[in-house]
């Protein structure tokens, strides 16, 4: 059983919003609303959910790009939010981020080599020659050539830009990589190349991944365990096979049934939800999924269900699951 690398406890992040459509009224967006989660060393933990569920905010909190409203994150036993100065910098070496959009996450005024080399400069590692050698090596690792070092982002395709982002993320040999929708913007054949690359890197560099995505097929492919988020909370957490074969939470069942299957002969019994996701400013009382839930019971609009282990480390937050 591997050690816990990242331990998230009762994490909350609320944003206040001014105005809204009724002037003067303030709202609170409960982007992350009480998350407990452990990530084990060496695993790929998938985090799925739709827009507004809080998965990106959770990723940003882990990166300390946001400060929490409440709760804690422990990295290898140390409280991440107590870091400052050099120790914070040290944390940033160990936890890196791959961004979603290969078009906006690279500085358009810097060459590929300069982008990949920047982490070494920030952390004052190596001299110029050593840095350049390492950049060349990293580019090779991600499937780019030395000749492309001097080129600028606009001269690369989306897939190639994502490779630059990946090279930048692994430059400092991090322990944990938070990949936020790393292949969503890519065509399926390029997506396959990047997924294979991430798999190789995990083996070669001993990486732990938090793989955030709304694409259930991709998440199923890469993950060991998967957490499902809805309106700022984790509603289900299980090993991949268990989640896809026997999902427990009604929302997970809906999500899985909604994925279009590339097989025209398979008649799908699809559960179609009514309406849109409610706003995280005004979540429903009790279980936040109850207004859309096909399995709703009386208790569901009164009491919020807790995330409970139902056996074989399959956790779910739902009154309807016995």
């Amino acid at each position: 059983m591997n050690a816990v690398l990242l331990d998230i406890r009762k994490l909350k992040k609320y944003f206040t919003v001014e105005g809204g459509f009724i002037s003067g009224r303030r709202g609170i967006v409960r982007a992350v609303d009480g998350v407990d989660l452990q990530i084990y060393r060496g695993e790929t933990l998938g985090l799925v959910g739709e827009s507004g569920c809080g998965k990106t905010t959770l990723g940003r909190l882990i990166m300390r790009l946001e400060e929490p409203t409440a709760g804690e994150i422990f990295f290898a036993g140390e409280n991440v939010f107590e870091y400052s100065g050099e120790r914070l910098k040290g944390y940033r070496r160990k936890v890196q981020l791959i961004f979603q959009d290969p078009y906006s996450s690279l500085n358009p005024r810097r060459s590929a080599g300069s982008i990949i080399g920047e982490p070494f400069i920030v952390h004052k590692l190596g001299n110029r020659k050593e840095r350049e050698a390492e950049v060349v090596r990293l580019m090779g690792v991600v499937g780019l050539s030395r000749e492309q070092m001097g080129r600028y982002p606009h001269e690369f395709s989306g897939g190639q830009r994502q490779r630059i982002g990946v090279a930048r993320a692994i430059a400092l040999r991090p322990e944990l990589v938070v990949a936020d929708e790393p292949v969503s913007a890519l065509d399926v054949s390029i997506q396959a190349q990047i997924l294979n690359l991430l798999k190789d890197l995990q083996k070669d560099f001993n990486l732990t991944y938090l793989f955030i995505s709304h694409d259930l097929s991709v998440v199923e492919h890469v993950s060991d365990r998967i957490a499902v988020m809805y309106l700022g909370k984790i509603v289900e957490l299980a090993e991949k096979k268990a989640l896809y074969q026997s999902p427990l939470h009604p929302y997970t069942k809906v999500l899985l049934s909604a994925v279009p299957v590339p097989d025209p002969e398979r008649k799908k019994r699809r559960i179609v939800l009514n309406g849109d996701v409610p706003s995280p400013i005004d979540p429903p009382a009790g279980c936040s999924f109850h207004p859309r839930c096909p399995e709703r019971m009386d208790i569901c609009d009164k009491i919020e269900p807790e995330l409970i282990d139902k056996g074989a480390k399959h956790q779910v937050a739902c009154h309807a699951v016995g």
Partner: protein
Amino acid sequence: MHPLLEIKDLKTYFETENGTVRAVDGVDLIVNEGDTLGVVGESGCGKTVLALSIMRLIPTPPGRIVSGEIIFDGTDIVRLKENEMRSLRGKEISMIFQEPMTSLNPVFRVGDQIAEAIRQHLGLSREGALERAVEMLGLVGMPSPKERIRDYPHQMSGGMRQRVMIAMALSCNPRLMLADEPTTALDVTIQAQIIELINKLKGEVGTSVIMITHDLGVIAEAAQNACVMYAGKVVEYCHVVGLFSSPLHPYTVGLMESIPSGEGGYLKTIRGAVPNLYELPSGCSFQDRCPDVMKICREKEPQLAEKSPGHQVRCWKYV
């Protein structure tokens, strides 16, 4: 009984400083009444330019339909004058664009945007058109449509905006609807709702659909026939069941194998990337990425030919 739409050897080129981009380079296809034709391809294959060509929305300059015919219900619409095309566009042939946020006018209320097409084509008064807009929004499953027509696009979620686009596209009962990546920017549960909606409305309104997407899952769920595009040409064309059960073109096979399954492990990939459209090689455009490339592939371009009944492929392997 002629098909609703028949495209013959369509070529749409763009003249740029760096050369000519042959975005659509000799496309033939047919849409029969009541069908959904899926057009599958990745970025740069020409599928959006194809749709814009059918709508005669290609910016000229730098683009231009160079040759070919687009025969809609017996008339070649390439030859129509702009004012004649305008009476077709939005009425007989309509389009759902890919990104609902950038396709709706941010400074006009949603109801007025839907009503605009209705007033233009059906000649109704503003009140009459707005009533019909409410009806259409109800048809596309928008809750509280009477209130929603007063919203601006930014007040709506992506799924709602997409429904507005669909309402707009269907408001004048078109014979043919072009849907360009209608679900790509949306969450998967909303995606499912939109696919169901389009399928349902096809039956109710009697519209035929061209569904453009890179998502093979969407094709499987929504289309009866499918064509695969690569570098401006159709490389495979058949009934959707045949596309998945026996894909022929190495590019199609590669696409199918790139789809992540739950298995984990490595995915088979198509090596390389889409060729530079300014510098397509002579012979088959797929030659540098094809696992089955032969000598003739680099010399002569293959033609689209029928390999088995209803299944066409453009590949020397099958000649």
